């Protein structure tokens, strides 16, 4: 399989080497990378236009945010609120809640290309401000949505159709550990044999350990030649996915991995407002125990769920990472004009 490049004759790597040593006012991208971004955005819009999925636009600043213990939002002050007093607004970590409010208002299938913000470190695959593609499909479950993600990757990267594994299958294959039955002690005991040396592993939660092992051992070995779809995550990592009706130990959540990148995360969306409120409150409890600030729950979102979210599946995909794969970039700074160090 050959990845499509932006333009024949582009020599991104050589130019990048020149660019990264340049003055800090200059972009870290090459003209080729900028061309490739414009082309990719056009391809994405064409893909959804052909499928009658509506492009929408929702606020990046919102009064509520994710309670997820491992997601941190930038928080800012708004001193001109309509209630006459200052209020906190969060920069969105994804447009999920607002898009679901549109779905509850009978929007039908929708997608959005927008900036998302995460208050966390920068790295090879990470910039705190990044471009996200998120879309929702009423009447799809997560398996049907996986087909559509696969089609999008074929359309934009020219990949072969992806492989599919359950989380359990892929963990057993690469680590010998069954994620659905393994104990906390078995996970910590397995770390040295898997080449992971970390202090006080017993202080990590069961799911943190699973994620650590998955990220360090499984991810580098999957999706090297074609995209790898992993579904049926442990229920403890359900986030906003439904718990599976077939195996309640798992959630209807999937992730897509390709050439070292965690590319997309999708759910058969949880529609139960009470269950959703419970998960938010649980997260805030955990945050409190960990000495982290609790997060204002997005009441607009919960009210919308009360009104009724149609059965739907949704997925968020990192556009900068997609662009890295498309251009063969080895660092996200090669596809973002002004990464956070130069922002």
């Amino acid at each position, binding site marked *: 399989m050959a990845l499509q490049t932006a333009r024949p004759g582009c020599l991104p790597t050589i130019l990048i080497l020149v660019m990264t040593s340049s003055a800090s006012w200059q972009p870290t991208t090459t003209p080729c990378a900028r061309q490739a971004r414009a082309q990719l955005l056009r391809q994405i819009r064409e893909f959804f236009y052909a499928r009658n999925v509506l492009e929408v636009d929702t606020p990046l600043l919102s009064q509520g945010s994710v309670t*997820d213990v*491992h*997601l941190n939002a930038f928080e800012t002050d708004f001193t001109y609120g309509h209630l006459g007093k200052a209020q906190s607004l969060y920069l969105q970590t994804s447009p999920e809640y607002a898009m679901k409010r549109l779905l509850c208002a009978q929007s039908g299938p929708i997608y959005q290309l927008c900036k998302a913000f995460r208050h*966390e*470190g*920068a*790295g*090879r*695959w*990470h910039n705190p401000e990044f471009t996200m593609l998120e879309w929702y499909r009423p009447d799809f479950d997560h398996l049907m949505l996986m087909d559509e993600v696969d089609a999008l990757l074929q359309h934009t990267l020219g990949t072969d159709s992806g492989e599919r594994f359950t989380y359990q299958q892929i963990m057993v294959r690469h680590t010998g550990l069954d994620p659905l039955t393994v104990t906390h002690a078995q996970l910590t005991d397995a770390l040295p044999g898997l*080449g*992971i*040396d*970390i*202090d006080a592993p017993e202080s*990590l939660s069961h*799911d*943190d350990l699973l*994620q*650590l092992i*998955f*990220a*360090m051992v499984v991810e580098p070995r999957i999706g090297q030649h074609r995209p790898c779809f992993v579904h049926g995550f442990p229920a403890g*990592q359900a*986030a906003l996915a439904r718990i599976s009706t077939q195996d309640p130990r798992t959630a209807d959540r999937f*992730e897509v991995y390709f050439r070292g990148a*965690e590319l997309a*995360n999708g759910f058969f969306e949880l529609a139960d407002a009470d269950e959703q409120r419970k998960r938010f409150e649980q997260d805030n409890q955990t945050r409190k125990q960990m000495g982290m600030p609790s997060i204002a729950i997005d009441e607009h979102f919960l009210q919308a769920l009360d009104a009724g979210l149609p059965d739907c599946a949704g997925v968020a995909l990192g556009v900068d990472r997609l662009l890295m794969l498309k251009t063969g970039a080895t660092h996200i700074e090669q596809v973002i004009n002004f990464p956070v160090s130069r922002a």
Partner: protein
Amino acid sequence: MANYSTNEFKGGLKIMLDGEPCNILENEYVKPGKGQAFNRVKIRKLISNKVLEKTFRSGETVESADVLDTELAYLYTDGEFYHFMNNDTFEQIAADEKAVGDNLKWLVENDVCTITLWNGTPITVTPPNFVELEITETDPGLKGDTAGTGGKPATLSTGAVVRVPLFVQTGEVIKVDTRSGEYVSRVQK
């Protein structure tokens, strides 16, 4: 002693691990979309010279190591210590045998070496990439015997043994790459 947060990790940063100063070779930020963030680092321990991989929780702090590289000229050995001098300040410092290690065989008087100091004490001595040394002993090569023999061993004035081409003779000075221990060329005296 100062601390570094994992956010400051990058190649070349010196940190303490298991009571030993270490050099970070590579740092990778690992953050599953819905999970805890980690930093996976490749580290060289500067005393034992072991390379290992270690994972930290992002946001953790580690103690910094007071490690400094200095360029000093080799003077002499008194049999126990190896004495170096800063050519600008004329300040002298002595490294022990452990710090010099195998690089002993590349120490040439007046050559400027890189001395790595930890809390002011030399822990490693790195010779220049190329040194010039006299051959003290090598078999006289037989004329015409040039085919595929891969040269012959030659003992140098410091005791180092390198493979040299057959035409090189005892008493000649040769240039050697200290990183590979390989012969580079003859040097005109």
